[in-house]
């Protein structure tokens, strides 16, 4: 078992690489997916965020803080 004394540690060693592999595959497969948010909602979100930043700047007077 790869030089390990017991199965539990061999399993941990294997799962470390396996779980990293799952993360990489998940990231690649979902690279361009927005998830459960529709494009329309995302447009609304961008508009909301822009407004929030404008309000924020207006209140703080803009410029580096």
């Amino acid at each position, binding site marked *: 078992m790869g030089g390990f004394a017991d199965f539990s540690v061999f399993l941990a060693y294997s799962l470390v690489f396996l779980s990293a592999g799952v993360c990489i595959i*998940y990231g690649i497969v979902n690279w361009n997916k927005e998830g459960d948010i529709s494009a329309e909602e995302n447009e609304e979100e961008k508009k909301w965020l822009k407004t929030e930043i404008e309000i924020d700047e207006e209140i703080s007077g803009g410029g580096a*803080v």
Partner: protein
Amino acid sequence: MNMFWLITIIVVYLSVISYLGYLGFSHTKNSLDYMVGGRNIHPYIMAMSYGATFISTSAIVGFGGAASFFGMSMLWLTVCNIGVGIFIAFVFYGKKTRRMGLNLDAHTFPELLGKRLDSIFIQRFAGIIIFVFMPLYAAAVLIGASRLIEGLLGMPYIYALSIFTILVAAYVIMGGLKGVMYTDALQGSLMFFGMIFLLIFVYFKLGGITEAHTSLTALASKIPEGFAKIGHAGWTASPALNTPLWWIIYSSLVLGVGIGVLAQPQLVVRYMTVKSNKELNRAVAVGGLFILATTGTAFIIGSLSNVYFIENFGKLAVQMAEGNQDKVIPIFVKEAMPVWFGYIFMLVILSAGMSTLSSQFHTIGTAVGRDIIPRFKDNKNREIVITKIGIAISILATVFLGIKMGPGIIAQATAIFFGLMASSFLAPYTAALYWKRLTRKGAIAGIVSGVSTTVFCFLFLHGKEAAVFGISKLLIGRNTILGGMWPFVDPLVIALPVSIIFTIGVSLITKVENQETVEKSFKGC
């Protein structure tokens, strides 16, 4: 080490860090930028910042040193770090948190909980918990980095600690979260490549993967008597079931830190810095690889250091480090690696320390400026000024603890903070994201029961802390009120179920206070 090259490398490194800190400062126009990076951070920067904040000197020096004592069963923590700390965190917590944070205009973790439940008490109480306890974790990180600088430059510890703190404080206070995240991205990249090289080099030096593991397995006959007594069964074997060491590894280190990561305020705020779920999906890939390279390497190298030390010095790591596990990794790098790698590793450790410490200072500061002190709706610049004052106070508290805390404390202090955060906030936070029936009273009951159970365990049950506080000894003449395995069981094992029961139980017997807030919170989630 050649002093000229050492100082040249440090000056170049700090110049680049200063430039990135300035870049963050120049890109910061308002409190949204200062607190959550304007919610439009690049996914690579977000993932590296999350990883570099998560993985500190505690993980590499403290937990790597713990692996040199306890062996490769510590790799279960890496499995948790990737499976829970990256995959579950980003996919099941990150997306909901990002969207809910946007819906509620939350800039911090306490503010997210407070606004979701319409409770200024929750926001302030969570802010106070962060303000009071996070300096303990920050001090652990500071000690790790300062000890390394002390060892490399031969500089007195107090000077190393002061210089390191001033450098980090400068770009956190000026650059806000953008300054923190830009520098994190560079520091995370340095950590990634440095640790990958270390892993490959050590396996190569010890004759290959299987050969190295076989040599480590053969050291089982050399286990020190003190280790064998608490359940140590060898560096490639799991400790005997239900022994003190089994409980230390699996309840304090693996469970405490592995699960605790989900409720870390300095990490939760990262989810709120990206503009869509797409960025979080991409960050999963980068984050998984990063954690594998950092904690995976630290725990494997920590364990394998025993093989190198036995072959070259006839001693185990514990003997080489004279019983202080925080010294093992620095000694191993100094003795086993080429001189030029010593310079690289120094940057890796500096990066690990600076990236985590900067986020801790920023989180404590925002807890003061945004959560504890009432909001200044008419003047957001005052909010940032108070945040900066909060950061300054947290720095002083951290430096004080960094001077006062004893040796070999890094991994323990980290596990205490991670466990406390999970016990207090994980149940209400999870319910806030997924359960519309969660009530304000239920969340308060979950948080208060989690904190009080954890504090009770530290004072009366968990051996290490109970012995330090001495209250149990004063009252009943013993360090802990229960014997057997209980002094080794991490408080999280008791406090988290208590918090879950209170969160659900109290919510079921009370009514949701404001249905409108619930609908607003869950819009688009």
